[in-house]
Structure formats: structure tokens, C-alpha cells
């Protein structure tokens, strides 16, 4: 039973990874001049849509939860609407947190918000699919000894790894390597750091972190994506590895 579950989990996760990979390739068939770095925001939207769709499909197909007792249409619709509201709220919450962490408040609102959307896609959407709009269940899952199934366990791992990935993604921002994902200002005003030593009064262009017009969320979103994919890949293996040790209350 358990091995079977893990296998299903693995397949589901592979599908999710596949959706992320697809989202980088498919659009280039339809859109001209599409690339992750150049048209980053487009990719963010597409990736978000893909991952959400795959998650929904998986939820409908795999049905990791016991079916709800009440299954009237109105209840389902209400539930769906609630999910949507939760998703939006999580986007706004993330946006606020990013701003609190130092993202610009007024400029680049769209970029920051799309970053919030993609992070919500990686974290909130699976939670909504698996646990439903039920804050208590969420809080339970994300506390010690709170998980009740391997699905929840993998959810825990992928969510945390997405967060960590986007957190780590913030680190390259101050570096002055002038990579396209990091420091290419549209007006070309990113002054190379003055390397002439002597004139103390003429240096420190502060990297590119002040007026990043185009590249701000790239490293963070890529970090979140890598974190999500890594979480997806690792969690079945980790669960398989620890399957003897893991005991769930409800299973």
C-alpha cells in the first residue's frame, strides 16, 4: 500500500516537473522571441498556469484525499471560489512580505506581484489542492509531527524548498557579474563599478540593485523554480528512504 502510494507520488511529481520544463519550451513554438530571461514575465505567467493546471489535474485524477462527504454542486463551487480567494490572498501576502524584505514599493509592482504569483503557485496551489481552503489543516501540516500522509509530507518538503529556493535566489542580486539575469539595465545605465582605485569619491555604483528595471525578480523566481523542482524530485526519494521511520496517524 505504502510503496504503491510512493509510486503514485513519484509519478505525480514527475508530471509536475515535466510541466515546469514544458512551460519553458512550448511557448517558444507559439511566441516569437520567447526566452526565459528576455521575456521573463511572460514565462512567469505561463509557468504559473501550467503548474496550476497540472496540479488541478493531478488532484482530480489521483484524489489523494478521502472524498468530501458533502458533494453538492453549490458546495463545490463555494469551495472553488474560496480557493481562488485564498490564492489571491496568498499572492498579496507574499507581495507584502517581499516588500518588507526590501523589494521596491512603488516601482516594479508588476514584477514583484508576478513573483508572488509564481511563489503562490508553487506553494499555495498544492496546499489548496491537497488540503482545501482550510487554514487549520495547513497550520497542522506545517508544524512538527503534523503530517498525516505521504502526500502531506511531500507537500511540506516542496513548499519549504520553494521558499528556501526563492530566499537563496535573492543572494546574487548585489553581485556585479553583469549576467543578463542579474544586472542588465534597460537604459544601459548600469555603470560598471569604477575600478580605478584612487578616487574614493567616484565609486560604488551600488551594483545594479538600485535601479534594476527589468531583471529584479529573475534570480528569485528562478531560485523558487529550482527549489520547487528540487523539492518535487527529492521528496519521493526522501519518503522512500525513510518509509520505515515514517508513521502517520491517520494512515
Amino acid at each position: 500500500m505504502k510503496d504503491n502510494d510512493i509510486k503514485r507520488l513519484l509519478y505525480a511529481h514527475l508530471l509536475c516537473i515535466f510541466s515546469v520544463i514544458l512551460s519553458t519550451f512550448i511557448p517558444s513554438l507559439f511566441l516569437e522571441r520567447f526566452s526565459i530571461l528576455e521575456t521573463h514575465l511572460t514565462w512567469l505567467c505561463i509557468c504559473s498556469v501550467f503548474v496550476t493546471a497540472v496540479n488541478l489535474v493531478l488532484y482530480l485524477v489521483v484524489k489523494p484525499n478521502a472524498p468530501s462527504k458533502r458533494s453538492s454542486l453549490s458546495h463545490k463551487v463555494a469551495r472553488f471560489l474560496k480557493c481562488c480567494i485564498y490564492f489571491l490572498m496568498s499572492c498579496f501576502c507574499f507581495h507584502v512580505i517581499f516588500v518588507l524584505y526590501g523589494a521596491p514599493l512603488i516601482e516594479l509592482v508588476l514584477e514583484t506581484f508576478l513573483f508572488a504569483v509564481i511563489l503562490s503557485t508553487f506553494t499555495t496551489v498544492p496546499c489548496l489542492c491537497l488540503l482545501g481552503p482550510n487554514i487549520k489543516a495547513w497550520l497542522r501540516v506545517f508544524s512538527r509531527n503534523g503530517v498525516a500522509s505521504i502526500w502531506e509530507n511531500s507537500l511540506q518538503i516542496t513548499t519549504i524548498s520553494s521558499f528556501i529556493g526563492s530566499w537563496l535566489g535573492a543572494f546574487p542580486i548585489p553581485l556585479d557579474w553583469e549576467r543578463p539575469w542579474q544586472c542588465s539595465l534597460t537604459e544601459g545605465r548600469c555603470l560598471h563599478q569604477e575600478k580605478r582605485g584612487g578616487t574614493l569619491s567616484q565609486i560604488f555604483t551600488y551594483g545594479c540593485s538600485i535601479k534594476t528595471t527589468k531583471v529584479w525578480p529573475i534570480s528569485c523566481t528562478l531560485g523558487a523554480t529550482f527549489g520547487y523542482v528540487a523539492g518535487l524530485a527529492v521528496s519521493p526519494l526522501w519518503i522512500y528512504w525513510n518509509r520505515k521511520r515514517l508513521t502517520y496517524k491517520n494512515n
Partner: protein
Amino acid sequence: MQKVSVLLFLAWVCFLFYAGISLFTSGFLLTRLELTNHSSCQEPPGPEPLPLGHRGEPGACWMASRFSRVVLVLIDALRFDFAQPQSSHMPGEPSASLPFLGKLSSLQRILEIQPHRGRLYRSQVDPPTTTMQRLKALTTGSLPTFIDAGSNFASHAIVEDNLIKQLTGAGRRVVFMGDDTWKDLFPGAFSQAFFFPSFNVRDLHTVDNGILEHLYPTMDSGEWDVLIAHFLGVDHCGHKHGPHHPEMAKKLSQMDQVIQGLVERLENDTLLVVAGDHGMTMNGDHGGDSELEVSAALFLYSPTALFPSVPPEEPEVVPQVSLVPTLALLLGLPIPFGNIGEVMTELFSGNKDSQPHTSAMAQASALHLNAQQVSRFLHTYSAATQDLQVKELQRLQSLFSKASADYQRLLQSPQGAEAALQAVIAELQQFLRGARAMCIESWAQFSLVRMAGGATLLAAACFFCLLASQWATSQGFPFHSHRLSVAWGLAGTIIYAGLLATAGLKLDPVVLGAVAAVGSLLPFLWKAWAGWGARRPLAALLPIPGPVLLLLLIRWAAFFSDSFVIAEARATPFLLGSLILLLVAQLHWEGQLLPPKLLAIPRLGPSTPAVPPRHNGMHALGLGVGLLLCTRLAGLFHRCPEETPACRSSPWLSPLATMVGGRAKNLWYGACVGALVALLASVRLWLRRYGNLKSPEPPVLFVRWGLPLMALGIAAYWALASGADEAPPRLRALVAGASVVLPRAVAGLAASGLMLLLWRPVTVLVKAGMGAPRTRTVLTPFLGPPTSQADLDYVAPQIYRHMQEVFRGQLERNNSQGPLTVAAYQLGSVYSAAMVTALTLLAFPLLLLHAERVSLVFLLLFLQSFLLLHLLAAGIPITTPGPFTVPWQAVSAWALMATQTFYSTGHQPVFPAIHWHAAFIGFPEGHGSSIWLPAFLVGANTFASHLLFAVGCPLLLLWPFLCESHGPQKRRQTPRNEAETRVRPEEEEEEEPLMEMRLRNAPHHFSAALLQLGLKYLFVLGVQILACALAAFILRRHLMVWKVFAPKFIFEAVGFIVSSVGLLLGIALVMRVDGAVSSWFKQLVLAQQR
């Protein structure tokens, strides 16, 4: 454990760090004293009269001038091989394909066709190969180091004697065009100047085209004696594309045309100098000391014949500074006072048709003048400092006197032998080279041994801190061995000093301190090693919890990257925010964030007031979000390291006086005063909440009346300072007087308040006769069933205590003893109240030193630390009687917040960003000759946040007790205080058997916890300084070392010293309160017994 010994121990640990820092600094920060003496025409450099025949001539000074005009073309980063002639007789050589080779064909043509008129040299540059240092060297003839002591950090103007100064002094017209670095170096020195911005290295053409626009017209106008053109294109091209780019070929060809054009326009009395200030690496960078960076081109040309001989096959290597004395003498100027360069003798040998003897004589006289000047400089310099080695100095001096005597003898007998003349020249050259080598050794070379030693000592001290902080709370902390080891260290130092003294060597206090530190540290580490054995697991070495360790590691690693050091102002709040969220998440993970789901059990105490649960609901979450918000708001007060187009400093950091527009100014003024009032009100509210405002003690009275007075003074001062220009004329004197008096009055009030606090730190209200207060001693009610071991640990003693309480209540009734702990209400927060009062008293004068609007940051600072303390307290389990510890995350967050506040109060770890105006607050007329007071004021301004957070560090230990909710917090500490009285006077009657066992242990634990807290804080700070030192050590040849790493190290080092002193003060204050409380108890008990 004695309280004093705790303090002494901490002081000793601080000393270890200081010794490491000073040892490292002495090896790393090369210093040189800038002498302000000037050479003058009238005053010959030596006792002998100036060479005959050179006086009285027009334009002659020390020597007759050979050229009346000079064109100096400085091509930034003109490496030697850029100018090297390409031998045409090797066809098909692949080097021709390199874009930078053979592009200066006009030089090549001159060298081939007119070998007597021009000469190319390979000029040997001294590191650091950065433009400003090179310009200093090229004009003063000296070796600029990172810190030229005596120079003004606020501006870059050269204070030493230099060529430009001599030129303007002699009335020559100096015209400059090009790099605007010269504007900073020589403000107002040029008769005409065309400056072009140099900071954008991507821009290859602005400066060069700007120069070209003015160069030829200026030259043709003839309104100049010295024309300096500083081209930047080659350097910028190197930075942007590297030397191997076709763009470089274009740039060099352009330079070639420039030289060609100049050569055509030169007149006979004019000398053309084409020089590179430094080279560049394969990648086009510079700053270090690699071969490619230190070899620059130097080309001299004159339309008249300049050299008697044809140039050698391979161009001669000359030190770059040689240009300075050469140019000075050629132009008939005195050699700049601090020059250590050696004249290029060939230029003084006259024409090719002059006699060999007269030309050699001319060379000797130029060299002799040069040697006299260098000797005079060495004499003056060694009298001012002790940098130079005495032995070498003596050797050089004797060499010089011999050469000088020989020279004089030659002068007496003019028909002396050729050989003797050559010998004199050789001797003089030997002296000059020796002098230069000695100066290089002491000014331009890192002492790797000292740097490594200092870094090792710092690392050992950090390791020791970690180890000792683990031991501090365990029973077997080897304090006696500490004393022993200090004794060892002292003995070792004395022996070492004795050895040195007997050997007759000079005592170096830095080395002495390091020896003492090592000597005292080694026995301790040895003890630790011996006592290690098998019983201590290796995990004890890394007591820091994983995520916090990761954060700290990231922070330390960030010191090794120049980008991260520059971006630290934004990285630190990010890390702080991460830590805060981590704390909240951890609380949630442990299940402490949410209210317990189950119902509360009935209260245990009979009369316990209604108390909210330990961690109510979203309390911690709210704290976390509030903290993040505060951090972000404080981040709005950001100052750029330098003003550049890409980075704008917050406009709120400028003083209000600079604002135009009355309305906005008034609004801001209102906001600032509002912040002040809010700060004051919140502190008073806090004190009132914990009952410390009721006592009739003098400090409390001071808090009630003195603090508002201080706030009033500050507000009045701000009003005067921001509107001083608008004051009506007849009030000017009054305003001026008030702006002197008010800040001093505030500082005086603060000082007297601190004195009062130290004198009577116990702010309790003794009110006897309150009925049955004992019952209150009971309990923190615990709501909900115990869910964890910690809860069980918490509940069980409560029940036990309750039983004791009931029992004791009966006893007391029988004894009809008076209520003893009436005053426990105030006692509960007696330590924190003193701390908070002291912090407020410190904060007000510090706030006065900042610009007005930074008061908002100070308000945020207090709010932030308050929230953080609450959040941390929520995470710390209520301590059972056992050892008290402050978790690592608390200490790390505290240190991070100190750094963050440093930035948000408008500081940056670079020298130009220091708030110099702070020196004039209260002293608008300046300080006269005093140095220490302005330094103190500026230092207090710069390191205000370090000081405040370090002094407030003991709050980390005290706060959880304070936060245990309303009821128990008043008592938690009380037992410990009572313990002081109970434990020491053993003979006293044990009238309170209640918590005897626990109380007896408590004072020991209290001292141990303070020690541990101090050690942990020192560790976190110490590793920071260690990381800075290592970064400076490893990256000492990095491009950014003098721009980023060295200033960061200096700021971090001074910050560490300030923090450690503050920490000691804070802990001392707590101990003073502790002592006062115990004596207070003693008095109380005596009164009761009577």
C-alpha cells in the same frame, strides 16, 4: 563566581581581541605621516651654499631652469608595452596582431629619427596602482599609502609639498584639462582648468574629446607655463573591453595623433612628457602590484637636443617618482619637500657637444641637491615618527655625509679626476636608492607575519569565546585557571620585555600586547585540550543551531565579496528579516505560536489575577510582522556609499537647515519632535507599566523631570539649527549662544542622569504594611495541558511552590512577621528599568549628534528592539531554576540589528561618509587645536548604534523574565535578588525557607549567564572582525582592497572596540544594580530585625 571576576574575565577576552586587531592592523594598514613642510627657493636643502653660477639667473632657484615650459600628457593606464617601439626588422611577428602593440608610431618615429631629442623609459610604478595614489606620487614624489596620517579624510586635497604647489608658488600658470580627480587633489591650484567627470568607466570618449577640444587652442594661446592633460580613454577602454580589443587600437591611435599634434606645436623651450600613471592587467584592471600593472611608459621629448648619447637598445627602467625631482630641477623649482625620487641624471648632462667633465659635474650637482633634499626629508620625518628603521637610517646618513664630503672636495678642486667624479655620482645614487628602498619597506609592504599572527590571534580568541561560552554555565568553569593563565601571560610578557630591554631593542607595544595575549590564552586552551578527553562530544564545539549558524555563515562569507560589503546596508536587513521569520516559523513548528487548542486547567493559585496565556495566538506573528515593518521603514533612511547617478541617498538624512520651503520644513520638524516625544512617552509608559515610576528615588525623579527637559532642549536646538538663517538680526547673538549652550546642557543632563543612576540604581518603592503580599508569589497560571516536556518542567515546580506557599503562609501567620517583599512589584524589573533608563539617557545625546530626521530612526530602533526582545522572549522557554541561557539566535539577531541600525542612521563604512558635522554640535566655532573632543563626537555619532546595542545587550537575558506575563514578572527576579541577601549573610536567620534551594543557586547562575551572554556577543562580533581581517588578508591584492575591504575592516574594528566597551559597561551596570539591590535588602532586613 564573583561578579568582579566575571567583568575581569570579559575584559581579558576583549583584550585578546584588541591585541589581535592591533597586531593585524600594524601589519596591514601601512601608514605614513604627511609632513606639511615645504621646500622654498630661498632655503637651500643643505647647509652648503647652492652651486655657484646658478644664482642670480632669471627663473633659477636651486638650479638654473633648463625649460621654461612643460607639457605633461598623462595617459591613464598607458602600459609600457603600449608605447614600446615594434622592431620592424622582424617581419611576420604575431605580436603585430595584438591591438595594443605598435600603435604609438609617432614615438617610434621620434626615437628612430631624433634619438637625441626623445627617450622612452619603462617607469616602475609603486603599488597601489590606483589613479589617485599615482597622481599623488607623480606630484609629491613620495609613496602614498592607504592612510596618509595627517591628511584630512573629508577631502582628498594634497597637503604635502608638491610640484603643482611649487609651480603656483613660483608664479607659473598651470593649465589643466582632463580627469576631475585633480580637482579634488589640487583645489584651486590651476590658472585654468577643464575638468571632465571620470566615474563612468563605460564612457570612453567624453574626457578625451573634452581635452582635445581645448588642448590645441590653449596651447596656441600661450597662456600657460605648464600644461597638464590627463586622458582617461585608454584606462576606460581597458576596464570596458580589456587591452585585447580593437577599441584599444583605436584609442591608442587617437593618443598617437595627440602626441603627433603636440610635437608639431612644441617650441624650443618646452619639454613634452608623456606618461602613463600605471599599467593594466591582461583583463584591463589595475590596483595591484603585478608586473603588467607596475610598468608604465614614460616618454620625454624636446625639440632641442636633450640627451648626449643615443638611447640604449632596451629602454631604461626608472622609478616613476624620479620624474618629480627631474621636472622640478629642469623647471628651476625647488624639489618638493617629501620627494624620495632620484633625478634622471642624463637630463642634466647638457647637450651632446658639452664637455664630459662639465656634464658629469652638472649631473653630480643635481644629484647632490637631490640627495640633500632627501636627507633633509629623512631627518625631519624620522624626528616626527618612528616608522623608519633606525639602523638603516644611520647607515644612510653616514653614506650621505661621506658622499657630500667627497662632493665638496671635488668642488674645491674643479680639475679633479674623472674617476673621482664618477665615484661621487655613484655614492649619491647609492644613497638615494637606499633611502627609497627603506621608505618602500616601511610604507609599501605588508607585514605578512603580523597579519597572519593577528588573524590567528583573532581566530583563537573567537574559538576561545565559543568554548568558554559553553563552559560558562557548567559548574566546573575553571576560573582559577583563568587567573593562573593571566598570570602566566603577564609573566611571559615581562620576561619578553626584559629580554628585549637587555638586547637593547625598541619595545613595540603591539607585539608586547600580542605576546601577553598569546601567553595568557595558551594555558587556557591547553587546559581545555587536556580536559577535552572523550567525555566532551565534538558537537559541543558547534552549539549554534543549524539555521542560525547558516545565517551567520552567510553573513561572515559576505565579508569576502566586495559587492556584498557594498550592499551590506541592504543585505543585513534581509538577513535580519530572515532570522525573524525563522524565529516565528520555529515557534509555529514547535507548536508554541498557536493558542493551545484544549481547554485551560483550573488555576492553581487562589488569588492570581487573570493572566493572558503564555503566548496568545497571533502575538508572535504580529511581533514578527511589526519587526519586519520597522526594519523596512528604517531601510528608507539609506545612504549611498558614494553619490552616483545610480544610487540616491535618502533625502531625509540631510539636516533640516538645508531644506527650502517652510511648510515642509515645519512638518518635518513636527515629525521629529513627535518622534522625540513618542520615544520619551514610550519609555515612561514602559517604566510606569512595571511600576518603576513610583519610587521616590533620584533616578526616577530624573526620568520624570530630566528626560522631558532634555527632549525640550533637543527640540529647541533643532528649531534653532534648522532656522538659524531666518532669525532676525538682533536675535543672532542669542541664537548663536543658545546653539552652543543647548547641546552642552543636554549632554550634561544626560551625564548627570547616568551618574544618578549609578549612585542609586535601585528604583523600588518601599511601602511596608501591604497585606499578605506573599500569596502573590505564586504562580504563572498555565493554561492548557502540558504538551511538551518543557511545559511539564514548568508546571511541576509551580505546584510544588504552591504547596510551599500555603505552608509558609501558615508559618507566617504564626510568626506574625511583617511583610517583607512588599516592594517586589518594583523589584521585578529593577535591572531592566535601570538598563532602559540608561539606554534612554545615552540615546538622547547620541540623537542630538545626528541630523534631525534621524530621530525617527532612533524611535524605530527602540521600537524594533522592544519587539525583538518580546519575540525572543516568546521563544525562550521559561527558565527553570537551572542555568539561565540566552540562545544564539537572540544574540545573532541583536548583532544584526546593531549593524542594520548603523546603516539606517545614515552611515556607511567608508571615510567620506562619516558625518563630520557632528564635531561641531555644541562647538559651532570649532575646537581649536584639540583633536580628541571632535574625534569623540564624530565617533559617538558613527558608532551610536554599536554603543546602544552593546550596552543594551543584558536586556536579552533579562527580558524573558520580564515577559513572563504580568503577574509573575514582578517576582521572577525577586527571588534572585533576595538570594543575594540570603546567601551571603549566612548567619542571618532563615526566615524564608520557601525557595531556598533554588535561591541559593541563583546568583551563581546569574553571573554565569551574564558571562555567557557577554562571551556569545563577543563571539558574534569577533567572528565578524575576524572575517573582515581575513578578507583583507586574503584579498590584499584585490582591486577593491583600499576602497572596500580596508575601510570595512577599520570600521568593523573600531565598531568592535566600541561594542565591547559598551558591553562591559552594560554588564557592569547590571552588576551595580545587583550590588545595590543586595545592600538594599540587607538594610531592609536589618530594619525588620530591629
